[in-house]
């Protein structure tokens, strides 16, 4: 076990844990943002540099600070390590720079983008970005590419996080047809001679994309995500675990996705049959509303009842306490 201090909070984690995952054990708003790191994908992380943190003391053995900021998603903790994240001006400054870099080519087309509302870059820019850009040059644009009948690649929005590449490599069968072509800012996600990705798990590349570069063609432009209602459901699936989230508009299932945790990472991969073909309520056993983080725009409609900590009620203003008495929350934590 290794004891580390993260923004002044001490936490003990097993050896080999990364700084990011140690921070996730503390949770809350001090967790560094991650655009390219994705726990289930081996080899992911270290690329976007969004999660850079300052190591003010390397370890008990060698308490010297690390000379450069380190990518918290790929750097393992050492016993006695002291990490500064939100408490370091340097880190916050660099994050502004990273947002600016990522937004050089990524268009701010959130009003028409299907990822709006569940976009990591949108959240990252909201928390760390600035409202203006200093970039005067021409931005790069691409034609949209259909990677098979179900997925569309909108390369203009891609931030080259490589998550979809790792997904296609690691969970898909049938050989590699998909990867990064070109170098530098000419790099792009591509398929082998415009090949399609047509295996049973290809739809997962949509779920891992942190921005709106890979979109579900069966859902495109059907609805804004915050007007849909996420409901957990499962079915007996011969290919995958069949645990999914159904996104309802009224009685219609508009979209099926894998279930994700609070960091937007899928808990279990789902197959294309569950994702694209099973869009009737009758196909599923409904479990109940999916948990959505309160900070998410999707939670604006309060599909899930609020969980209120009993101990804080006494500290609330009297008028609020009276309201709570009249309309008590169903769940008390």
């Amino acid at each position, binding site marked *: 076990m290794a004891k580390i201090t993260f923004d002044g909070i001490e936490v003990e984690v097993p050896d080999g844990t990364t700084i990011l995952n140690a921070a996730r054990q503390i949770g809350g708003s001090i967790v560094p943002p991650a655009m390219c790191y994705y726990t289930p994908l081996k080899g992911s*992380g*270290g*690329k*976007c*540099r*969004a999660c*850079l943190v300052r190591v003010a003391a390397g370890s008990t053995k060698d308490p010297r600070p690390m000379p*450069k*900021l380190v*990518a918290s998603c*790929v*750097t*393992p903790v050492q016993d006695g390590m002291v990490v500064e994240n939100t408490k370091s001006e340097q880190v916050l400054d*660099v994050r502004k*720079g*990273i947002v*600016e*870099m*990522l937004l*050089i*080519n990524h268009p701010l087309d959130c009003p028409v983008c299907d990822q709006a509302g569940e976009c990591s870059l949108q959240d990252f820019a909201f928390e760390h970005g600035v409202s203006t850009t*200093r*970039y005067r*040059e021409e931005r790069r644009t691409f034609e949209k590419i259909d990677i098979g009948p179900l997925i569309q690649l909108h390369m203009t929005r891609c*931030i*080259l996080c*490589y998550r979809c590449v790792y997904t296609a490599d690691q969970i898909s069968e049938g050989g590699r047809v998909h990867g*990064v072509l*070109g*170098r*530098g*800012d*000419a*790099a792009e996600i591509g398929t082998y001679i415009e090949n399609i990705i047509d295996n049973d798990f290809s739809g997962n590349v949509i779920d891992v994309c942190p921005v709106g570069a890979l979109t579900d063609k069966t859902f495109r432009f059907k609805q804004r995500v915050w007007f849909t209602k996420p409901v957990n459901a499962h079915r007996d699936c011969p290919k995958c675990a069949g645990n999914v989230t159904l996104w309802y508009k009224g009685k219609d299932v508009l979209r099926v996705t894998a279930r994700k945790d609070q960091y937007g990472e899928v808990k279990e991969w789902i197959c294309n049959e569950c994702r694209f073909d099973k869009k009737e309520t009758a196909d599923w056993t409904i479990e109940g509303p999916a948990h959505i983080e309160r900070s998410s725009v999707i939670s604006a409609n309060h599909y899930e009842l609020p969980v209120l900590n009993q101990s804080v009620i006494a500290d609330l203003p009297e008028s609020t306490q009276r309201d709570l008495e009249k309309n008590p929350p169903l769940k008390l934590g």
Partner: protein
Amino acid sequence: MGRKLLTEHINVEGIDTLEVYRKHGGYRSVEKALKTMTPDEVVEEVKKSGLRGRGGAGFPTGMKWSFLAKPEGVPRYLVCNADESEPGTFKDRQLMSKLPHLLVEGMITSSYALGANTSYIYIRGELLYVLRILEKAIAEAYAAGFLGKNILGSGYDLDLHVHPGGGAYICGEETALLESLEGKRGNPRNKPPFPAVQGLYARPTVVNNVESIAAVPVIVNDGGEEYAKIGVGRSTGTKLFSACGHLNKPGIYEIELGLPVEEFIYSDEYCGGIWKGRELKAVVAGGSSVPILPKELILKTAAGEPRLMSYESLSDGGFVTGTMLGSGGFIAMDETTCIVRNTWSFSRFYHHESCGQCSPCREGTGWLEKVLHRLEHGHGHMEDIDLLVSVAKQIEGNTICPLGEAAAWPVAAAVRHFRDEFEWHVTHAKEAAQPGAVYQGKAVLA
């Protein structure tokens, strides 16, 4: 005349053949090491010599060797980084093409010291003719029993391979090199783990530059202490400098570290002064990635001391008034050089060569190049100058590998020392955009 340890026999006819090379003392270090020394003793000699990596970073070679993990029953590798491609640096190419057996000898002795039974020379793909020279030398070494099974009856086995790369600058970064050697796209790896723990095929690996490995036979033959007597302070031994630019005698020079920069530029033994009798304007002392210095700061330090060709003296004053020895790519620029155009040229290179894996380098190198392009072509704005500094700062230190720094340092240093020239490109945009236009003012001392 300074002593020449590596290139003493470089002009001997037929020195690229085993026979002639041996007549001039070749392969003595292999015989000495394998027959009379333990691997640890060889490492100890290299430590004593104070040899520092000649590829650019200047890390002590012996110390790097001693970091190598040595788990039982697991192969270890030595990889020679012959992917030299920094603009201004061309000394390894010469060393390999003229003295291939020196590198092969160094590889055998070093591999023995590290306990590697398979070693690789990763060479830049464009250097096909050098690859053939090395392959011939390796074949000769196999035939003479210096490579293969049971070398010189010592019980030590070594196979040596030359592997041509795809010609990407990034493949000179040690972890990208290992990826490329494994047959993958040459993208740098996140560190840790370092190659000494998990390198080639996830095995403990040492990656050394050609010149570093070529120095090992000399160290083993003469002893580390003798080697350490040459040079100055912690900059021991000799170093090859590839001098280019506006010099009377550009070329590759082996010098004893500690030679004054002024002597290197102006003496007839070395570069012979600035061509056409012109004035020196600036120097990039260690390959295009290191900060540029104006004449006033390259000849003397900020304290007025003579600047020496050594790791410490060149970096004296940090990046405010100093630079780096780097890989020894010494680029001299005379008074007719447009610093903005030159910086744009360097920047174009790093933009082209960025692997595109991490966001600050992928987006930042392109941004720098585009802003410099605008400034040079008369479309710049005054705020662009601070923008360059700011973008360079956003890249520096925040990338997976040092290519980010290599792209950021030249730009930041050019603005630091020649800001008035950048401003002139904005205030006299039309004039500055003319071919051959050069600012006639003086460089500003930091």
